């Protein structure tokens, strides 16, 4: 116990004496969350939409205003004017231009309101409205389709009493605006917390390898668990503080709300941080230098946390092999907890499974690190 304490005290002094690394440790996640939080948004804004109005009636103009009023669209409209023959030629021209612009990416979609639009509607006939969407980005296209649909419905249903045999009322639970920020930010928080935790410990043993001081640890009567735990425990506190800073930052800048109990969040965060620290210390026992350790810790946490945790791609859409791998990614579990806590407000008993898996992963990684350190000490290849 005294030996473990000696290692812990020494690590704390080192943390305190090296404020430069601490600045990086604190600044890095904040910068990343700031950039990613703004860039990584699935919400569409200012979609360039061209509306070709061949009807030029009050009704068609009303439809255009509906689109223009929605902040989602940026509307360009073309109105057909002049004599009948000219109009037919111009319409042809418009359509060709529209297709060209769509191809060039100047517009994302175009709508064609046909000439007899208002007349048909007035006579209670259905009238077609053509919508051509750029489907190159499937995600954007689906969303566009949904947005358009909403506007059409609000336009048509109040004006004419089209009787529906039943009424479908959809209510989105947990994220009523289906905004992507509350969805993205927990993923970022999870990825960054793991990254920082792993980074903190990954450097510690690698640093001692570089300076050569590791030989003094090897040669001392310290047991391997004393060294591994003594180098992990102090960083738990540091990582918790960084985690808190990340949360506060996400709260004030991106409106991240915690609906569940803060205590549950704290407990699960401690376990999650421990997982990151354990991963870091394992990396540190294997990596020969600080640079290698840092690189492995960064890539090894960020990439799986972003791509294989359900952060961006739903786990259901992954191939079976990748999906199996996703169950080994700590962020998968913490993300589930975090999304539930921030969007739904669930309680601890809902997360017993996730928390246990994270704890199991941590203990496994720690045991592996201790083993690895022991063999390192014995063999010293």
């Amino acid at each position, binding site marked *: 116990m*005294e030996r473990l304490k000696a290692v812990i*005290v*020494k690590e704390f002094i*080192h943390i305190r004496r090296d404020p430069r690394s601490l600045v990086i440790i604190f600044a890095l996640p904040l910068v990343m969350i700031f950039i990613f939080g703004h860039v990584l948004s699935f919400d569409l804004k200012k979609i360039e939409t061209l509306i070709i109005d061949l009807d030029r009636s009050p009704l068609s103009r009303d439809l255009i205003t509906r689109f223009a009023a929605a902040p989602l669209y940026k509307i360009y409209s073309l109105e057909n004017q002049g004599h009948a023959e000219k109009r037919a030629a111009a319409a042809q021209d418009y359509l060709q231009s529209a297709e060209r612009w769509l191809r060039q990416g100047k517009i994302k979609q175009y709508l064609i309101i046909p000439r007899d639009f208002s007349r048909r509607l007035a006579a209670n006939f259905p009238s077609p409205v053509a919508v051509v969407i750029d489907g190159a980005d499937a995600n954007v296209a689906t969303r566009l389709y949904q947005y358009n649909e909403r506007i059409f419905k609000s336009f048509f249903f109040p004006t004419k009493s089209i009787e529906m045999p039943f009424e479908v009322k959809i209510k989105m639970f947990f994220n009523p605006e289906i905004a992507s920020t509350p969805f993205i930010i927990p993923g970022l928080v999870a990825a960054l917390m793991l990254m920082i935790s792993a980074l903190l410990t990954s450097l510690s043993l690698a640093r001692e390898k570089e300076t*050569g001081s590791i030989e*003094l*640890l090897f*040669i001392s*009567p310290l047991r391997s668990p004393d060294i591994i735990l003594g180098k992990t425990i102090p960083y738990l506190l540091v990582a918790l503080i960084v985690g808190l800073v990340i949360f506060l930052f996400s709260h004030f800048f991106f409106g991240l709300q915690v609906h569940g109990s803060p205590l549950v969040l704290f407990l699960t965060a401690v376990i999650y941080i421990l997982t990151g620290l354990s991963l870091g210390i394992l990396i540190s026992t294997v990596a020969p230098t600080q640079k290698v350790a840092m690189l492995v810790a960064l890539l090894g946490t960020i990439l799986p946390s972003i791509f294989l945790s359900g952060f961006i791609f739903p786990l259901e859409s992954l191939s079976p092999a990748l999906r199996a791998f996703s169950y080994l990614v700590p962020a998968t579990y913490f993300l589930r907890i975090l999304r539930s806590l921030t969007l739904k407000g669930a309680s601890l008993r809902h997360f017993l499974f996730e928390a246990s898996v994270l704890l199991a992963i941590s203990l496994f990684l720690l045991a592996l690190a201790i083993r690895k350190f022991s063999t390192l000490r014995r*063999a010293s290849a």
Partner: protein
Amino acid sequence: MKNLLRKNSEQPGRFAFSGISPGRENQPAIEVKNLTRYYGSFAAVNQINFAINRAEIVAFLGPNGAGKTTTIKMLTGLLRPTSGQALILGYDVLKNLNLIKNLIGYMSQRFSLYPLLTAAENIEFFGGIVGLHPREIRAKIKELAAIISPHFLHQKAQDLPSGIRQEVALFASLLHDPEIIFLDEPTSGVAPERRREFWMKIYELKRRGKTLLVSTHNLDEAEYADRVIIIHEGQIRFQGELAILFCQEGVNTLEEFFRRLSPYGTA
């Protein structure tokens, strides 16, 4: 007896060791049998043999890259020999690592103190990891304060003058009162006039019955030792008293001897 000792070796606690290790009186302090270490196909240490008696000071000499540090690392259990055996008080180093750790002290040229910790904090750390009680550690720090002037105690090791730093490093490596002390280039980077003082410390340790193997490439320091072992290109070229070397080889100085070993190299 053997069982008892093995049991001890499995317990990493502090080995109660006063004066002579029981049952080990007749064993040489350090013994090396056909010790060999290859790095790839390069033999850093090649079939070397020597023995060092208790309470003896031996200077381990050789140019850089001769195999001094490799040998010391194998003796301290930091490096696994390719073949051969390293024994401390008759214990095979590899088989009794935990026991050996309590018997030996090690101070290396590369690193002996954490530069960001103060002298006192270094003592606290090294005292802590060898299992000293906090009370003992406090006493040790007081002891150190009497050796170096107290205002150095709370300076970071990196800011200490090199002579003082080396003093603290030696003190730190002796905290667990080891029987056998390996000093790997302890005086490199230390002013010549301070080297003499340092060797006075080493004599003091010998008077207390400690065995010391001091590696150095400062040839003038060899005169301080009881015996010298000269290693060159991984092989032992001479072991014994300096006077015998001079007679036997017909040289007047060590420099001459080294020049003969490698006419184009540097000693």
